[in-house]
């Protein structure tokens, strides 16, 4: 009996101490960690738009996130877009509800600031105030509209799809005509040396400059990557004067309509990424067109 008490007390105390230590560390670090994660995503977006250390982003570059929710009201489902709108000088969020057929249903103001909208719990709170039970909603995905001055510059789309072993998460940049501007692999656990090569420039840059019509029927071909194309894709290895402007333009046009050359020994990973990107772009183009139509017909003062 004495032993039981001793063991229980000792274990409870150790657990409490460990809990306090971990809890304290968490409270101290939580804010910095979240900030880092957002910063990481933002840096990737800016890099995809072609800005970096040598070429800093202009000050009038704005990133406006749009969040998509699926709303269920009894048996019927709707799509809810949280869109940033301009109300006077201030920016706020509106909820635009669309039917599954793409018809406008309703529009409601949300009590949430653009800064708070980054956090999922804050978004849910604001939505809950507008969508009263029995309506339910689940988060689907988000897109970010990049705007330079008052022109739409690009769409930035986070995407996730199954790879060879686990999920691959990516970030895609599309221009307003849905041509791919760039692809970045955010997280992946493919085999190093094989599927892991999807992170290499010679693979991910193959997607750059592909137009929507091409992406719709994009395939993976098991052919060796042409030498000049490989050199052209590996921009990080470029030396000064290696390509003239004309040459770059020539190669770009030559391979604009080519399919994706598979990585040697990693056909499955190459196919997963290609099909994943294809899915993300196709679905997005469809949704963005419908949303834009509604925004135009309802005169919603969107910020993008």
């Amino acid at each position, binding site marked *: 009996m004495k032993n039981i008490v001793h063991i229980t007390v*000792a274990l409870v105390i*150790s657990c409490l101490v460990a809990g306090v230590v971990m809890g304290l560390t968490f409270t101290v*670090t939580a804010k910095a960690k979240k900030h880092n994660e957002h910063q990481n995503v933002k840096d990737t977006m800016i890099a995809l738009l072609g800005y970096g250390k040598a070429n800093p982003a202009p000050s009038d570059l704005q990133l406006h996130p749009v969040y998509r929710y699926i709303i269920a009201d009894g048996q019927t489902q709707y799509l809810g877009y949280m869109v940033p709108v301009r109300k006077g000088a201030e920016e706020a969020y509106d909820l635009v509800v669309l039917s599954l057929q793409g018809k406008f249903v309703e529009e409601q103001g949300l009590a949430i600031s653009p800064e708070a909208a980054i956090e999922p719990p804050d978004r849910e709170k604001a939505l809950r105030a507008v969508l009263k039970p029995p309506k339910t909603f689940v988060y689907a995905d988000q897109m970010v509209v990049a705007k330079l001055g008052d022109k739409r510059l690009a769409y930035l789309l986070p995407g996730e799809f199954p790879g060879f072993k686990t999920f691959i998460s990516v970030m895609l940049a599309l221009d307003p005509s849905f041509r791919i501007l760039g692809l970045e692999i955010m997280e992946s656990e493919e085999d190093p040396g*094989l599927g892991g090569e999807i992170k290499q420039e010679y693979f991910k840059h193959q997607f750059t400059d592909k137009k929507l019509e091409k992406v719709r029927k994009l395939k993976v071909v098991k052919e060796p990557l042409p030498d000049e194309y490989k050199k052209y894709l590996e921009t990080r290895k470029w030396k000064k004067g290696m390509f003239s402007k004309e040459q770059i333009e020539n190669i770009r046009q030559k391979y604009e309509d080519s399919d994706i050359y598979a990585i040697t020994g990693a056909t499955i990973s190459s196919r997963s990424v290609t099909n994943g990107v294809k899915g993300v772009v196709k679905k997005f183009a469809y949704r963005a067109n419908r949303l834009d139509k509604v925004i135009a017909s309802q005169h919603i003062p969107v910020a993008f």
Partner: protein
Amino acid sequence: MAATTKTNTQLLIDGILTENPIFRLALSMCPAVGISTTVMNGLLLGIAVLFVQVASSCTISIIKNHIHPRIRIPTYTLTIAMWVTVIDLVLGAYFPVAYKAMGIFVKLIVAFAIITMRLEVFACKNAVSKSFWDGVGMGLGFLFAMVTLGFVRELLGMGTLLGHDILGFRPLLYFALPAAGFIVVGLMMGFFNYADIVYNRMKKG
């Protein structure tokens, strides 16, 4: 086993060479085989293990007189898990660049055999300073082993070192795959044993 009579330097050298966790004790083979595909991966995991090993060894050594002998293992696991969580959080918050590369490895450390084993065999019977040096030695030994494995496998498997192209081609792609990890570990172990025999023979003769 009674308290150790070894000096601090000896403990350090033991951890790195004569009692190397991977090549001599054959512990924590799972990460050794799975993660040592490149020098950088090995280095990062090695550093993370070094931190956790030293912190856990010291903690257990401090509270060793209060641990009920029947519940040693839960206490060890709790201590290791606590330090792993703390390091994971701190890295994520203040070293985002390192965390981006190390993040997935740090969480794995909770289940490493080498750390639990050092706590059981050494830290719970020795003074704090000795445990500290034992932790440092074992951590460095693990780091050394991971980097050596990573070196061989990255060079042979991918023809690169630290991501820089060295050979310009890939001699044996097979070495980048997990199964080849066993082969490299085996060859290294053989080499260590051979070096040990030669060394002893030289000392005698």
